[in-house]
């Protein structure tokens, strides 16, 4: 079963790479593979598959959670992408400097999407830290071509920064793995599998372990988008096609977070949980602050969303660092954020297609111009800003309660304050976009793409709403177990 999870997207990917045309077949291949993957994931909830590859591949609550998010979001993105590919002309003029540019071959795009899914699945499934690292590295390789889909110099620049910064981070993470191995030298015949390390956490050398945690935190933190390592994120998200941005924000960042959580759990088992917790909390607050700074008066609405991702990654880190109830909150928040952010990026794609600009000030009267996308955009903003009745309100409330229960009053205050600032700044921009009169703005509404473009975001929005209205018992317990698996106690 686990093998299937890995094989389906990989095979589909290579197949897509292989068959250059007919395009129609390829375009059906993408959602089909995604659907199959989702179905398998759903089955995993019913029956938990056995670990394979002598325990290197396995599925615990945490990985199942992340896997489900990734798979579900990918399904939505795949459907959206199908419509996207249908519409997108191969050659178009760059609306920023008017130059002509082409897109990468569609076959490669689809293939990379599927491989991206495969690599992310690998990250979630791997119980071996080395293998997990390989997976994270692989996600970089698979996603870089996606960012360079539109072949103009801005997207190339974004790709370059993404590659460089993430590779550096990944290299540091590798260093961290080595440190871990050294730390484990004390216990004979090392295995970097989660179970093994947890079992022998006692014998690990604390100093090396701490150093290892630092390296892995910075390394995976770069990928996750924690300030100050977040710098690749806004560029990549603003230049990549919106569907890719949605996957980056909604799925990739979680996978990186998963990497950090694995080590955090290990630290906890080794009795260093406080040390790692404080670091996570600190990075969380810092990320929220930095994100707030750049959300204020942000001119580009896709960058705005990217920075908001940084902010929410900060919230996740903070929640995991504070621990206790907040850990469960962080898990819930991960789900909510992925859904809401995916929705927003897909909608941003629609807006971009119609308004042909990423400058927020040049977008006015959304509610009138795009009768479906507009309201969804406002709803998505409210969701991501954490207003009821959307899910993020609940998770943010839980995290706050957790923080206060742990007696981290200062953290709670900073958390509330930064949330407020980000909200105010974001509201200013979103309102200007949604309201106002579209008069005097060149829009070509025929470029808005019917059901393909609105159904997926609508579904995601509905999911966030549902999570805000009711959180079934089984899900709550699953989240709690996931938090426990993440070593957040």
């Amino acid at each position: 079963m686990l093998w299937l999870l890995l094989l389906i997207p990989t095979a589909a990917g290579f197949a897509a790479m292989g068959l250059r045309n007919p395009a129609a077949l390829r375009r059906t291949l993408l959602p089909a593979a995604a659907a199959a993957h989702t179905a398998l994931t759903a089955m995993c909830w019913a029956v938990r598959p056995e670990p394979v590859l002598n325990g290197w591949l396995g599925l615990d609550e945490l990985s199942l959670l992340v896997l489900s998010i990734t798979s579900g979001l990918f399904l939505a993105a795949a459907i959206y992408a199908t419509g996207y590919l249908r519409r997108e002309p191969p050659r178009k003029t760059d609306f920023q400097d008017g130059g002509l540019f082409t897109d990468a071959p569609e076959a490669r795009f689809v293939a990379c999407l599927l491989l991206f899914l495969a690599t992310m699945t690998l990250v979630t499934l791997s119980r071996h830290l080395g293998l997990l690292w390989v997976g994270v590295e692989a996600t970089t390789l698979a996603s870089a071509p996606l960012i360079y889909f539109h072949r103009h110099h801005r997207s190339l620049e974004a790709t370059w920064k993404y590659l460089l910064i993430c590779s550096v981070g990944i290299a540091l993470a590798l260093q961290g793995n080595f440190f871990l191995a050294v730390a484990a030298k004390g216990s004979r015949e090392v295995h970097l599998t989660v179970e093994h390390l947890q079992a022998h956490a006692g014998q690990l050398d604390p100093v090396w372990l701490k150093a290892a945690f630092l390296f892995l935190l910075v390394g995976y933190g770069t990928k996750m988008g924690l300030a100050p390592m977040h710098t690749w994120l806004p560029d990549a998200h603003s230049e990549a096609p919106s569907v890719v941005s949605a996957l980056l924000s909604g799925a990739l960042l979680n996978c990186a977070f998963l990497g950090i959580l694995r080590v955090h759990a290990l630290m906890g088992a080794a009795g260093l949980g406080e040390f790692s917790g404080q670091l996570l909390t600190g990075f969380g607050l810092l990320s929220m602050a930095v994100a707030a700074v750049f959300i204020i008066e942000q001119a580009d609405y896709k960058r705005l969303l990217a920075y908001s991702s940084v902010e929410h990654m900060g919230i996740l880190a903070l929640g995991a660092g504070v621990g206790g109830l907040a850990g469960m909150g962080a898990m819930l928040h991960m789900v909510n954020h992925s859904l809401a952010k995916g929705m927003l990026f897909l909608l941003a794609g629609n807006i971009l297609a119609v308004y042909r600009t990423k400058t927020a000030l040049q977008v006015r009267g959304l509610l009138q111009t795009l009768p479906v996308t507009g309201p969804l955009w406002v709803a998505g903003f409210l969701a991501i800003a954490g207003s009821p009745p959307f899910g993020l309100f609940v998770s943010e409330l839980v995290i706050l309660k957790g923080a206060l229960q742990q007696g981290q009053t200062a953290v709670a205050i900073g958390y509330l304050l930064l949330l407020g600032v980000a909200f105010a700044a974001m509201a200013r921009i979103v309102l200007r976009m949604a309201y106002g009169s579209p008069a005097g703005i060149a829009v070509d509404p025929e470029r808005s793409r019917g059901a393909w473009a609105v159904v997926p975001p609508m579904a995601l929005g509905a999911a966030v709403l549902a999570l805000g209205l009711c959180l079934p018992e089984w899900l709550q317990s699953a989240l709690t177990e996931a938090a426990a698996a993440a070593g957040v106690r």
Partner: protein
Amino acid sequence: MPAALDILSILLILANLCLLGSSRLATCIRAVALQAVILGAAALIANRGELDARVIVIAVASTLIKAGALPWLLRRAIRESGAVREVEPFIGFTASLLWGVGLLGACLLIGARLSPHAAQGSGLLLTVALFTTATGLMVIVSRRKAVTQVLGYLAMENGIYAFGMAFAIQEPLLVEMGVLLDVFVAVFVMGIAINNISREFDHIDTDRLTALKD
């Protein structure tokens, strides 16, 4: 014979300083290649105890790739983009050297903190490995060309590899997968990117790569 390891370490340091101090791209490329060779040797020496095929293959392969394939590809990129053969640093070479010495000090401190806890392996090599990584970062940060950034990245890689040597980590596949994958990234992906850059901008300076900002 840890003495040999120590000598290699010293050589590694020198290579780093050369990388920091030289003004010509070609020299830098050679310096990195040299590091790769040294590390290949170090690998063989470090695991002389159990010198099985796996170790040899890995050492030789990575040496060949990093000392052979990479320089060739980088030179080609430079030739194609017809870029200036200068390094064009943000920080002067002397300054970089001084910085390098400072980094060395920091690494010594960290190494000193760590090595007593090290179960085995050479304390010096540990320090040098860290220093090499730091040098790589330094080169990435302080040089202007995309090529030099790749070089810096390779240097980091060498540092990490050296670290792996220093402790002869037995964890199956960890070192190999890691190093090979990273090399793969450096060589192919970044290579491709560089070629794209040179096509798009007909040069490989990164100072034109600053259109995206706030």
